[in-house]
């Protein structure tokens, strides 16, 4: 016989039927059912198959420890989720459930992105109570009444824990009446929060507990709580264990407590003729309760009487068990092999465990964090004891958090209670036919692993539980060995001739229950997966069809194509405009740092390779920074605003790292320097006006400003009004052209850009993006940090001895004198001119000496291309490259072997290929 729905009883809502399908068969359950209880009530025996053996498997448990009933669930909205435990899925209308043979399926709901939405919540409390059973409720009441900020989390849909599945009484009233009253009181406490359907999945360092809350009717499907708790009470309960004997995996064999839970909570009669097989007192009332439900009790087999079940018979459903060599017909075997306190979170918190012989299991021993354990999680199994310990621990936790006097509140008295007494464990029942039956003695049902597997592992020489776990895969499935871990350890110990607690258990890993990737990713998806940073001029770029590139978190215009124009054509056009007339680009993303203080000049002398202390007010200077190891870290132009004030610029990507670097040296090495560094990156928008007509544009915009070559020379800056806006204008150039960088308040960035465009219209002013910017600077041999450099390049390698002081120390100066950094064959920056002026060497391509044999491997490489472009100005291609001893090779040929087997030959030249005399820039 299979399970049936009882005519009454249970905490389901029989007025709310819900339809669902299982492997295509239409079924009905009720609100309040789990998928497992509904399946059982519909007479389903086989929910899945053993992953290796293919043997039929039924429902074993009623909670997260279920090893068998694992299914694929498709919701009405089309979302399909693999590998869910039917025992933890709340039944809802329209579920389409499929059995699985060990592996789940990932499916996209059509072409649509998964509609599921999850979020996160940070929370802080004085006392966190995990588990809303009797011990947890008592603890929460004690803590909550003290005024402590208390959070109670419970994985179930309602509070009560095991009481939901028993008929226990308190003060001679149904225990659930007390639960209801306690829940009501807690809900009314202003500083107490109750989270239901909320599973604590991880206990990290510093009292950081992750709680996954399922929210079936909310806008977010789930919420991941990050709870920082002053004190933590773990009232996480215990899982009943199976007993290992031959063919112990047959549908109809289930945990005793689970069977009673199905009966009392869900109104499901799990079978008709039952044998109870127990090792302890927790099944004491089971027979009476089953009898009351009309189930015939065939036998009660108690290990403490020296009796044992050694085998089972049947097909897809249990038909009989073998008790002390005799066949007993039954369709239900209720098993209680003892109890495993749920110590997962305690262990994750680094608490230590100890073996307890009386309970034949591991118990919490010593906490490392502010962790308290109460109730059956602590080995206390009687209801009275759970309430008393819960109340005591809750009060103590609150007191340690500074609330209340630590005295526990009075709890109601349990009538009788459900102590388990001493456990007489049976790790596995020997079979009459000997060891051959061990291949049918299942230890880990989810991994289909048996006593035979463990015997093989120990026989191979393995003596560590971690090795045995890996050899057998026991404990590695989704249930993480909740029912099997202690048994496996004890079986292995027995086979090795050791005591049951000798081997310990494998490390408990977070999460306590499996949690979906989407649940953890939360809202950090799509547009919110990472900030998109844009400048104040972005609306113009978008309106004018810019193509963007990602530069860190920034989106920067790469080029501005006209209709039908290719990137190459657009970039050539943009470059030509800058070299022949005037171009404009948005340089707002450059890092900017305001440095103030009497020692600012000295400070810059120490952080830049060149000198700044003597820079005149009103002047600008290019500088290079190195790391302590002497490698180039960043570069930029720094201008003196006043005797005690500088305006530093950094590369876009290094804006934050450079500020951090400056603060680090200021705060930790040179606190005596009176310098303050403040980021002004986003205070200023920067519009670079570039080209021979840039002066004309500026003259139009700033009529009061003397823009003549003598009045506003190269590498100086002016404070001025430009287009009616207060501005700082820097005459600096990253293109080799006459150029100005106009800085205005970010509020004015777009207005300034528009004014520049209007003023430049008569000169054909052309906006350009990062690509043209890269070409223009490359033509001048200006390196880009991160493109010409890769953390292994010194300023000398870049041909920048001129920027490296010989007379003063700076960060990294000592490293430049190390042997390796003085080698003449270091890779040095050069330009390459392909013999074929149309041939473009791919960026990144490696280089070999002319005449190198390319027919064998490895081919000796002497450098690589860092940048490669078509130059509008030169009417040809060119590249920058780092080449071994490159400075001595000017005029030599070099070869780039391409991926397709062809080669490009090029001449090595000085890195400056346009206007080496700087006549254009200085014009």
């Amino acid at each position: 016989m299979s399970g049936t729905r009882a005519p009454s009883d249970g905490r389901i809502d029989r007025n709310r039927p819900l339809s669902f399908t299982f492997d295509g068969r239409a079924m009905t359950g009720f609100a309040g059912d789990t998928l497992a209880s509904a399946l059982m009530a519909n007479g389903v025996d086989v929910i899945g198959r053993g992953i290796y053996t293919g043997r039929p498997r039924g429902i074993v448990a009623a909670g997260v420890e279920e090893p068998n009933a694992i299914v694929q669930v498709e919701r009405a909205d089309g979302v399909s989720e693999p590998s869910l435990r039917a025992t933890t899925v709340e039944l809802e209308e329209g579920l389409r459930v499929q059995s699985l043979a060990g592996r789940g399926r990932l499916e996209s709901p059509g072409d649509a992105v998964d509609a599921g939405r999850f979020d996160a919540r940070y929370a802080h409390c004085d006392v966190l109570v995990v588990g809303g059973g009797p011990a947890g409720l008592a603890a929460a009441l004690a803590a909550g009444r003290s005024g402590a900020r208390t959070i109670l989390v419970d994985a179930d849909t309602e509070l009560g824990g095991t009481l939901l599945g028993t008929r226990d009484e308190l003060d001679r009233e149904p225990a659930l009446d007390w639960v209801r009253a306690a829940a009501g009181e807690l809900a009314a406490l202003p500083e107490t929060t109750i989270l239901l359907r909320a599973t604590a999945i991880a206990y990290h360092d510093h009292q950081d507990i992750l709680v996954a809350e399922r929210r079936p009717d909310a806008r977010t499907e789930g919420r991941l709580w990050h709870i920082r708790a002053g004190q933590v009470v773990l009232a996480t309960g215990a899982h009943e264990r199976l007993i290992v004997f031959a063919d112990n995996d047959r549908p109809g064999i289930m945990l005793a407590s689970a069977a009673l839970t199905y009966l009392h909570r869900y109104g499901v009669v799990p079978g008709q003729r039952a044998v109870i097989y127990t090792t302890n007192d927790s099944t004491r009332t089971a027979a009476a309760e089953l009898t009351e439900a009309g189930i015939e009790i065939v036998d009660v087999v108690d290990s403490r009487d020296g009796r044992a079940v050694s085998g089972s018979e049947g097909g897809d459903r249990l038909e009989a068990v073998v008790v002390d060599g005799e066949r007993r017909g039954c369709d239900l075997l209720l098993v209680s092999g003892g109890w495993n306190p749920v110590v997962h979170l305690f262990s994750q918190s680094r608490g230590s465990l100890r073996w307890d012989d009386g309970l034949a299991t591991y118990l919490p021993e010593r906490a490392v964090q502010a962790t308290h354990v109460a109730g059956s999680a602590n080995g206390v199994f009687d209801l009275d004891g759970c309430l008393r310990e819960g109340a005591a621990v809750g009060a103590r936790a609150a007191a340690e958090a500074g609330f209340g006097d630590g005295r526990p509140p009075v709890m109601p008295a349990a009538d009788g209670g459900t102590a388990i007494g001493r456990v007489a464990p049976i790790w596995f029942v020997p079979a009459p036919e000997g060891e051959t039956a061990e291949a049918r003695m299942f230890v880990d049902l989810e991994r289909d692993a048996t006593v035979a597997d463990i015997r093989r592992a120990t026989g191979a020489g393995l003596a560590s539980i971690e090795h045995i776990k890996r050899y057998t895969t026991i404990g590695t499935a989704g249930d993480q060995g909740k029912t099997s871990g202690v048994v496996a350890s004890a079986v292995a110990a027995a086979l090795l001739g050791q005591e049951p607690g000798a081997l310990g258990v494998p490390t408990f890993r977070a999460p306590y229950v499996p949690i979906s990737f989407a649940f953890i990713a939360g809202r950090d998806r799509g547009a919110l997966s990472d900030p998109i940073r844009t400048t104040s001029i972005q609306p113009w770029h978008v309106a004018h069809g810019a193509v963007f590139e990602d530069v860190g978190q920034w989106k920067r215009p790469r080029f501005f194509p006209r209709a039908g124009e290719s990137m190459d054509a657009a970039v050539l056009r943009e470059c030509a405009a800058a070299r022949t007339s005037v171009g404009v680009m948005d340089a707002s993303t450059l890092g900017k740092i305001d440095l103030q203080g009497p020692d600012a000049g000295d400070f810059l002398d120490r952080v830049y390779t060149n000198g700044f202390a003597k820079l005149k007010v009103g002047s600008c200077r290019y500088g290079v920074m190195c790391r302590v190891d002497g490698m180039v870290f960043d570069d930029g132009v720094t201008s003196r605003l006043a005797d005690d004030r500088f305006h530093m610029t950094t590369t876009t990507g290094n804006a934050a790292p450079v500020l951090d670097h400056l603060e680090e040296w200021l705060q930790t090495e040179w606190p005596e320097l009176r310098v303050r560094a403040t980021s002004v990156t986003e205070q200023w928008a920067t519009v670079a006006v570039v080209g021979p007509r840039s002066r004309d544009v500026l003259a139009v915009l700033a009529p009061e400003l003397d823009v003549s070559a003598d009045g506003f020379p190269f590498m100086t800056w002016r404070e001025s009004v430009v287009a009616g806006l207060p501005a700082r204008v820097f005459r600096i150039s990253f293109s080799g052209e006459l150029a100005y960088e106009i800085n205005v308040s970010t509020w004015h960035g777009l207005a300034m850009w528009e004014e520049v465009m209007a003023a430049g219209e008569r000169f054909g002013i052309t906006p350009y993006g990062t690509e043209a910017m890269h070409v223009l600077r490359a033509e001048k041999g200006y390196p880009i940090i991160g493109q010409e450099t890769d953390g292994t390049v010194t300023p000398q390698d870049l041909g920048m001895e001129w920027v490296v002081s010989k007379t003063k120390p700076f960060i990294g100066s000592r490293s430049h004198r190390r042997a390796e950094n003085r080698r003449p064959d270091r890779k040095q920056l050069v330009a390459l001119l392909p013999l074929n002026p149309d041939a473009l060497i791919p960026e990144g391509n490696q280089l070999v000496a002319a005449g190198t044999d390319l027919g064998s491997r490895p081919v000796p490489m002497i450098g690589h291309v860092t940048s490669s472009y078509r130059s509008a100005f030169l009417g040809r291609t060119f590249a920058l490259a780092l080449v071994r001893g490159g400075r001595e090779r000017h005029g030599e040929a070099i070869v780039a072997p391409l991926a397709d087997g062809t080669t490009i030959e090029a001449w090595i030249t000085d890195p400056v290929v346009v206007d080496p005399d700087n006549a254009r820039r200085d014009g």
Partner: protein
Amino acid sequence: MAELRRSPLEGVALGDGFREVPFLSQIDLRLNPADEGARGAVESVVGPLPLVPNTVHGGHDAAILWLGPDEWLVVGPPGSAADLERQLRDTIAAATDAGPVAIVDVSANRTTLELDHPDARAILAGGCSIDLHPRAFGPGRCAQTLVARAGVILWQLDDAPTYRLLVRPSFAAYLAEWLTDAIPD
């Protein structure tokens, strides 16, 4: 010039319960609080500096926020920064016993979002790890912290609670989208 200014969230549709307060004046002050000359000079202009970390003197219209043991942010109404900076520089220059004070106009370096929503705490707790419970964080408190992936100066104005979030312009659209998306159920 007001017509030429654009705030970072101009034209951006924002969710209920929050709005941009654009163009506030902001001056970053750096000085050693033990330097009585410098502190006296500064305080003669802006009023007492909050010396307790993460606290604020003042309110909606004018306030000083503690940013670090030697750093404060002076917030004022739009258009007041230039005068204030000049006044500070003049006063410090005249104070012969004042050590160095760094003064930087950072008005455009951050914009301000004001969150006035009954669930403001919960919304922020969706991405901000600091404890916003009234016992821990109330009116007159500020903190430099993270909300989701954006750095902010978080500042509680009143018991409502109303919060201000000062954020870099380039992160403002992200933060606004995050807040709009966060309005809880």
